[in-house]
């Protein structure tokens, strides 16, 4: 086992393939095999948030805690993720890769149609949230005019998602109900016609839920329309 701690993005890129990339390590470190090497981005200079006009750019190694403090409309979403002690370590880049029912920020980023800046063997480029691969350096998105977010949990704090719904009033992204965050495109079409009830009903078309310790697949599918309707009728 090796733990590489590159001090720059270039150095980090050179270490792609030398181990599992981590930043906060909250998901990978407890699961890493004793022989598994790691590449930590903690010192690679990838943390920080810049806001220019309405465009927000967040470095991949920025902690969720910092996002919650500095990006106001995402505060509720960040507060719904794990605990402060985890949010002080867990990062924006890492959240793109954690399996559901975790990764609520990735659900938000999908609803925001965020661009993910990556570097891999094909060079540096921007891709969509679900196409992120290689080394993620940043995410960027426009601050939406409207924002809707709800997360159904077993407890009010620090719990995986039963159903997560994020929307800017046009795009609808779901978490907790499929292996990865998903766009509810049929629901979006109904929403475009102003029919929230139909959007809620059609949201199940995007769902492919699983059983886990938080809820059964049956339950998730059953309550999904309720939470979509609630989310879309209460802007944050």
């Amino acid at each position: 086992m090796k733990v590489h701690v590159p001090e720059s993005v270039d150095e980090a890129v050179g270490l792609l393939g030398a181990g599992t990339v981590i930043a906060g390590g909250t998901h990978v470190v407890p699961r890493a095999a004793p022989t598994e090497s790691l590449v930590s981005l903690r010192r690679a200079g990838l943390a920080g948030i810049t806001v220019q006009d309405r465009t927000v750019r967040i470095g991949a190694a920025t902690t969720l805690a910092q996002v919650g403090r500095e990006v106001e409309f995402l505060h509720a979403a960040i507060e719904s993720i794990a605990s402060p002690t985890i949010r002080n370590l867990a990062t924006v880049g890492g959240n793109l890769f954690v399996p559901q029912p975790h990764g609520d920020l990735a659900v938000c980023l999908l609803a925001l149609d965020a661009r993910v800046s990556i570097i891999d063997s094909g060079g540096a480029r921007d891709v969509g949230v679900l196409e992120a691969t290689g080394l993620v350096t940043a995410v960027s998105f426009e601050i939406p005019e409207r924002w809707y977010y709800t997360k159904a949990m077993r407890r009010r704090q620090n719990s995986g998602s039963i159903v997560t719904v994020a929307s800017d009033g046009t795009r609808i992204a779901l978490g907790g109900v499929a292996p990865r965050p998903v766009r509810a495109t049929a629901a979006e079409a109904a929403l475009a016609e102003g029919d929230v009830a139909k959007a809620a009903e059609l949201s199940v078309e995007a769902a492919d839920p699983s059983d886990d310790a938080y809820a059964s697949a049956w339950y998730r599918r059953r309550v999904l329309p309720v939470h979509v309707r609630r989310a879309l009728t209460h802007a944050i």
Partner: protein
Amino acid sequence: MPSSVIELEVNGAEEEFVAKPGTTLLSVLRDTLGLTAAKRGCGVGTCGTCTCLLDGDPVMSCLVPVETINGSSVKTLEGVTPSDGTLSPIQQAFLDGFATQCGFCTPGMIMAAEALLAENPTPTRADVVRAISGNVCRCTGYESIIRAILDAADRINHA
């Protein structure tokens, strides 16, 4: 990769030690530095009893490979306890309010409370619940812990 020489400031003292690859901050504290207040409960970031302050922020020390924080400052419960044999206000409030039963979660609870009160000296009950939401207690039912942290805030503010 050979072991690394790591430097940390722990509870105000400079520490230098050799760590094997992937050694967690928690292991260093307990096994290398002999600071056993932080406990190893779950080892996967779920229980919170290993909570320490890393550069002032409360984190789960079982999740942090120590090579990644070379040069940082760490504070543990040992660093909170006054050296004259008395207890810190939060420790005293826990004792007086029967907020400790088996005691295994207590170091993490107190460190989470330390971070909270450092940032917000007049927390609401909701602020306290949020601050300890990553810390599991299987004895007290949490109420006595929440009351003790609110009590400690009062004591500090009226000291």
